[in-house]
């Protein structure tokens, strides 16, 4: 990992793999959309609305995965003081927030035909909503603190505390739901997942992951260059 502490090395790596990541993203989305919208049969219970799963579940999985990456990067920043670690967390956050928003919106659009309500406080949607707040809080920390060095220190704490909170939230909302809805609640992925549904889902999940990778690498490149830019601007002004 120390090899990539050098930003120039990271930039070289990034420009080498970026085209491949982008290509993989496009191919996977094409395959995912085709298998999800054309090949997969409609569900005998939900009809065509089951196809919403192919954009909802990957978004939700990515929302959780990206926050985990942010927490991991923050931990690496604290323990190893890796200079790119804070940057990795900072650039990942807006992408994660966007996916969380999509998870919430598509979850709502899936819920309305299924349960008749635009919103229900079930474990899944409630946890996603809290996760959205966690993302917004993290982004707000970077915006609110003017000194980037201090912002980084606070952001690390916020990311880690939030990460520990996620399973606690999930557990407590599950508990609360079990108390207030003793009748069987419709699980968002139905009784069992058939392979004709599972395969498009996995393809789309991989597509979303590749998309995140492409965006994240691009964002890190831009931030590293922006810092270089600032240093050059300062030197240029100083010498002229």
């Amino acid at each position, binding site marked *: 990992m120390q090899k990539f502490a050098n930003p120039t090395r990271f930039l070289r790596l990034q420009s080498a793999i970026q085209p491949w990541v982008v290509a993989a993203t496009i191919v996977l989305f094409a395959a995912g959309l085709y298998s999800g919208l054309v090949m997969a049969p409609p569900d005998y219970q939900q*009809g065509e609305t089951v196809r919403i799963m192919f954009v909802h579940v990957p978004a939700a999985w990515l929302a959780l995965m990206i926050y985990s990456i942010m927490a991991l990067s923050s931990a690496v920043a604290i323990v190893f003081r890796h200079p790119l670690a*804070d940057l990795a967390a900072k650039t990942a956050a807006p*992408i994660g927030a966007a996916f969380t928003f999509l998870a919430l919106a598509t979850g709502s659009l899936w819920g309305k035909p299924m349960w008749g309500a635009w919103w229900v406080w079930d474990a899944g949607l409630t946890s996603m909503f809290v996760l959205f707040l966690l993302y917004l809080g993290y982004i707000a920390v970077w915006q609110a603190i003017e000194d980037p060095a201090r912002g980084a220190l606070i952001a690390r704490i916020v990311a880690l505390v939030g990460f520990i909170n996620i399973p606690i939230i999930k557990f407590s909302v599950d508990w609360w739901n079990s108390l207030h809805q003793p009748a069987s609640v419709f699980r968002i992925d139905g009784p069992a997942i058939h392979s004709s549904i599972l395969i498009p889902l996995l393809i789309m999940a991989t597509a979303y992951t590749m998309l995140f990778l492409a965006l994240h690498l691009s964002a890190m490149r831009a931030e590293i260059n922006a810092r270089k830019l*600032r240093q*050059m601007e300062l030197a240029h002004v100083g010498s002229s």
Partner: protein
Amino acid sequence: MSFAAEHIGFVIASYALSAIVIAGLIAGHILRAHQVERRLKRLEDAGAPRRRKATEVPNEQ
């Protein structure tokens, strides 16, 4: 997929919304990358030397 099925509007809305948000993400990132590249190039043309030694990125914006 049958476009006449009931609730098809929800499916279309979900996919459309996802496409719009993803397109927005991609556009935002491309714009940001171009903005930085453009300013870097302008600064280089103005004669500011690129740092010869690749040093660690200090923790500053």
